[in-house]
């Protein structure tokens, strides 16, 4: 493999040990269409540096927030990105959850974004699911992420201004460049 890995290009999703020329995985990994792995606690921001959080009305919205407020507003701002092992190689399959009194998972059912009151399931026997998104980096910009729905191909999570609110929606990417579908993910 590469002698010098590029920074931020590696996602440590399972504990590994290298003993005597053999690589050991510390946990037992199960393979399924989508098999859940350990979550990463992250803060998601759009390209205007607005932070995504779940508001009182159970809606995902973006807001300008200094870093200190970010941690204070936790757990509403902390999203648990559950990574799933995919049987096909389409990108990193993830589910987004937030735990604020109860665990809610982001769903794009009927192309409408909402929070479902549920824990992300252990295994999903489907090729596409409303809570599973493919997390991919923007070509050439390794720090920027796009989330494509596994159920609706070509539809991405995006930030849209509606009245005074910046809402999280699902939309098709514009042909000539769309920055509203790009986010940055900061891992805790």
């Amino acid at each position, binding site marked *: 493999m590469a*002698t*010098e890995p590029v920074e931020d290009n590696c996602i440590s999703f399972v504990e590994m040990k290298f003993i005597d020329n053999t690589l050991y995985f510390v946990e037992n990994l199960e393979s399924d269409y989508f098999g859940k792995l350990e979550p990463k606690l992250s803060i998601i921001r759009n390209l205007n540096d607005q932070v995504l959080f779940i508001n009182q009305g159970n809606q995902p919205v973006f807001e300008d927030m200094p870093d200190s407020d970010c941690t204070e507003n936790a757990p509403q701002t902390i999203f648990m990105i559950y990574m799933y092992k995919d049987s096909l190689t389409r990108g990193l399959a993830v589910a987004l959850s937030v735990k604020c009194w109860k665990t809610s998972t982001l769903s794009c059912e009927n192309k409408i974004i909402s929070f479902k009151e549920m824990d992300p399931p252990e295994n999903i026997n489907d090729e596409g699911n409303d809570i599973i998104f493919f997390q991919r980096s*923007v*070509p*050439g*910009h390794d720090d920027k992420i796009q989330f494509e729905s596994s159920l609706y191909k070509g539809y991405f999570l995006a930030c849209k201004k509606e009245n005074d609110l910046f809402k999280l929606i699902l939309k098709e990417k514009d*042909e*000539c460049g*769309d920055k509203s579908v790009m986010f940055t993910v900061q891992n805790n």
Partner: protein
Amino acid sequence: MLYLSWIFLWLVTGVKIKGFNISDCSTKKILWMYSVKSEEEFFLFCDLPEPQKSHFYHRSQLSPTQGPGHLPCSGIKDLSDVQWYLQPQNGGLLEEITENYPHIIQDKSTLRFLTAGMNNAGSYICRPRIRSPQDEACCVKTILEVKPKTNTSCVSSVSHKQYLLLGSTDSIYCPSLSCQSDAQSPEVTWYQNGKLLSEKRSNPILVDEIYDYHQGTYVCDYTQWDNASSWTVRAVVQVKTIVKDTNLKPDILDPVKDTLEVELGKPLTLNCTARFGFEKDFKSVIRWYVKDSDQEWEVPTPEGKSVKSTLKDEVIERVVLLKEVTQSDLRRKFICFAQNSVGNTTQSVQLKEKKGVVFLYILLFTVMMLAGVLAAGALLYTYWIEIVLLYRTYQSKDETLGDNKEFDAFVSYARWRSFESEATSSLSEENLALNLFPEVLENKYGYTLCLFERDVAPGGVYAEDVVSVVQRSRRGIFILSPSYINGPSVFELQAAVNLALDDQTLKLILIKFCSFQEPESLPHLVKKALRVLPTVTWRGLKSVPPNSRFWTQMRYHMPVKNSKGFMWNHFRIIPRIFSLEKTSKTETTGRSSQPREG
């Protein structure tokens, strides 16, 4: 007449000619300044006036005859489905531009010129394919003029292929304006992939943050005033978004192991797959070398081909084909070499003969050996007697020397035959004992036999005679049959068994003349002896000939003699010298009866 010739001309050329009034078309004038060195593309757009919009893109489009009342192309639904026509410079009829045109491709509503040349100049007309009669005026006529760029215009010129680094800030330059200073820069209209970029009006276009969607074909137009008319000067730029050059050496993905197991004589394909990081200008190098002791040379193989190409990497594969793996190939090392501008990596492969094949041979060999041993064993067992006899003829051991015995063997048979068993099939025991045995064993094979009828003087005590004869013989031959076993002659056997227990040189041979039942009254020792002693089966007429298996078995059990006369008798070679010796020998061992110890 002219009309007919016109039709004839039309038929001959076979070109579809449409005659329509092009004077109503809105006219544009475009100038293409091409440089002779670089490969350039050029685009012509069909900017049909859209009915909804009240103003047009280009200033010089409105023709004076058009009034604001009726907008042309108002009835056309699909303005992107257009037909292009060419009016050659020397005048003449309109030609439809079809797929067979050299160097010109129609891409939706855009006309694309693949190569630059003066012959591209002319008037190009475009109009919708499906139209109604009132939309006859819906067309655009573009007068294209092509001029080569002169070298004297400027020193540095911008390329028609530009690369933007993703994530960075950069600008896109219009090649036709590269020679003008900033003060003179006019307003530039930019198009990306056929769509107007309304916000960009300057040269160059500054891109704050370059993303992959900035890639494409850019067209920059500016207006040049030439006396009374205005010309649009157009240039085309191909923009490609790239990542920065890699700072890693190439990776060899395959082969991984240093050794490879191969089979001699079979063809072999050695595959080298290497991954190269992105580099804008560098051409990747992947080669196979062969190292034989000190020499190293490159293997001529077909060029490497790209298996996978992504934004950041390219995977290239190169194959070495060996028609037949030879012994010399096993000594050599095959080295795969991959290089880019950062460095190089190598992976060497040593060919090893497949252990499995050798193992198979060893296994096969062992099995065959075992089979051979078994066969040999079986053969040995079957022909043991013959082998021993053969061995005896070559060895010089003679057991008969110095044992003070007179006879080689005595023969015991059922002398007093019961009259019930008178009828015998072929040969009677008496006949066998008295005639056949002496004929074969004495005459042919030179043994000395003792027969009671012949060699024992009458008048003595029977029992004492028996003991005396047994003591003077090396072997005892007993012809067993029901009459023997049930008759008095079995005493001879009993006596011989008892004597044999003390005398090591006396051995007993039983001949099964015919099957019999062991009577209960037999002494225990005799019964045991019958079970243990060597038995030769008499098979009737089959056994009569002297070279039968019966006689071979007999000879096996008879004493080993190796005297000269014995040997020569064996081979029936009786030279004169030895015949005298033989006769003297027979006299001493002779058939004359010996005086008994009484």
